[in-house]
């Protein structure tokens, strides 16, 4: 019988498991940091919304004369932050191994913030019509298994966001959120969303995948200023 040190195999297993445990611990710490970051960010978003709503009310009441451009600037800044954080939150949620419930809750809060911004954006179009040459797009999507074309649709929307910047406001809504947030179920009912992807450009509903050229035609008709039209209408 040859030498076989069972102890060495066991030691190696314990050390490997310990290193793995440290790895998981770091993963947990990372998740915790991310949740804390988004909790803080969410407080900022809530304040932003409150501030924007108040500003909008004051604009409506003509308390702020000719301040639409300044308001638009603040609105754009806030919405860029919101979009970046939503993307980030979605990625973190996918990577999360331990704080899944917290991320789901944060996703819900961000979705509500998005709808708030959508509402402000729609009001902005009436209260500051001259400085509001932007299009709002509500994008309902699902995961890869139930919506294989959603990834392509997201890329097309990314393209227009990169190209048109603040002239297009995209609000991405994960269909799964309707289980936790009644507001999403309501929106789905309002726009009669039954399949994915679905785009709501201003108030027009487009079900199914819309490619770059088709979306170009839809968007082109929405802009008023020549500057913006030249960016998209060729």
């Amino acid at each position, binding site marked *: *019988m*040859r*030498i*076989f*040190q069972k102890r*060495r*195999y066991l*030691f*190696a*297993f314990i*050390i*490997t498991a310990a*290193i*793995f445990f440290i*790895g*998981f611990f*770091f*993963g947990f*710490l*990372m998740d915790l*940091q*991310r949740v804390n*970051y988004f909790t803080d960010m969410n407080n900022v978003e809530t304040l932003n919304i409150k501030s924007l709503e108040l500003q909008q009310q004051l604009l409506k009441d003509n308390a702020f004369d000719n301040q639409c451009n300044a308001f638009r600037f603040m609105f754009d800044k806030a919405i860029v932050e919101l979009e*970046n954080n939503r993307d*980030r939150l979605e*990625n*973190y*949620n*996918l*990577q*999360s*191994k331990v704080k*899944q419930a917290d991320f789901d809750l944060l996703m819900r809060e961000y979705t509500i913030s998005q709808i708030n911004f959508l509402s402000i954006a729609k009001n902005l179009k009436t209260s500051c019509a001259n400085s509001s040459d932007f299009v709002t797009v509500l994008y309902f999507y699902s995961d890869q298994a139930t919506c294989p074309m959603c*990834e*392509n649709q997201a*890329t*097309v929307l*990314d*393209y227009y966001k*990169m*190209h048109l910047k603040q002239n297009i406001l995209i609000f991405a809504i994960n269909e799964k959120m309707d289980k936790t947030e009644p507001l999403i179920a309501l929106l789905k009912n309002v726009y009669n969303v039954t399949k994915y992807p679905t785009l709501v450009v201003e108030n027009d509903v487009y079900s199914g995948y819309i490619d*770059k050229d088709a979306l170009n035609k839809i968007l082109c008709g929405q802009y008023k200023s020549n500057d913006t039209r030249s960016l998209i209408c060729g």
Partner: protein
Amino acid sequence: MIGWIEILQDIVYFFSLYYVVFWVLVLLDDEPNSKKLKGHPEVSIIIPAYNEEGNIVPTLKSVEAMDYPKNKLSIYIIDDGSTDNTYKEALEYSKLMLKNDNYKRVVVFTQKNQGKYAAMNAALKMINTEFFASLDADSMPSKDALKKLMECFGNKKVAGVSPVLKVYKPSNMIQTIQFFEYTINHFYKSVINRLDSVHVLPGPLSVYRTAIVKKVGCFREAHKTEDMELAMRIQKAQYKIVQCNGAFVFTKTPYTIKSLYRQRHRWNYGTFRNLIDYRKMMFNRKYGDFGIFQLPMIMLSGLLGIIVLGLMIHAFWKSITPNLKLLQLYNYNILALIRDSSINMIWLDIDLRALITFVIVFSLTLMIVWMSFRLYKQKYGLKTTLPFIFYLFFYYLFLAVVWLGVFKDYIIGTKVGWRK
């Protein structure tokens, strides 16, 4: 959310880490004291050659240059039906050898091409020395290699002693990458030597105890990897195989990626088939660490390599696809895409777990490389930095491709040749 890809990644990380941790634990143990063989017993050196025109004479010259007493050496050169001038060159040089030195015997003969194992067995029938060495006709031992190898036969149970292989004059990127591979392989073999688990006696100057080799049944065809199969049989018969760390042999290595692929495919295919043939030794406590650790690890390393290759392709494809699609929407105008892009990153975006894993694996790899260079008595040259980077990041992916080819050929039943 943990998907099957993440589970697979964790399994790969765990096994790889376990393997490295086990190595480190083995290294922390005291090296076993082995009794040295004194004196210079008679040795027969068998040099099988197939189409080694241009190589055979430098090999014979290196044998001549060895500091082992010539009157204790018998040389057998077997031309295995070469289609070039190997036989003629060997015959002419052997006459010079006999004229210049007092070798016990220098025999050159030719036979119909039957393969290396048949050439070795043909020579084995003629020898009557206690020890014999096999020497590939494209390899050149260092001056003191045989002396050092013979010292390792102090224990009567030692059936074979393996030398340390070095790449002969690496002259291009492919050969320099192999230089790093051989260096680290040497370290790996010295670790498994401590576990009494050496699984191959390579062609370039492995020395055998003749009686044991004859007892276990000489060389076999063994899927063109006779050196590995014989080592397996020796281990199965409960004899010892030792790695001799000071005995260096220089060997010529493939020069092109195609020839490297073919060589590694033959080695790995043979290894895989032999592992299947000797599967009963796997996880068998009767064979100690060799059965419990070494054999399953060889099998697993091929499989893990393929899984890692698959995971890397998946990760690469996943990261590149959205950008490719975006580029397509920009009508492949990269400048326009760059102009419209913006960088938006915070430290929380870093996947800390992946980063830590990478840092641990990379640090351990560098530590092993450093230890390998020390053991190999080799200095690191700055000029070799590029091949070193290629070795670290791409060579194992290449080996995974080789393993993929091996599994494919095994499944569809392709025959593998050994000719150059």
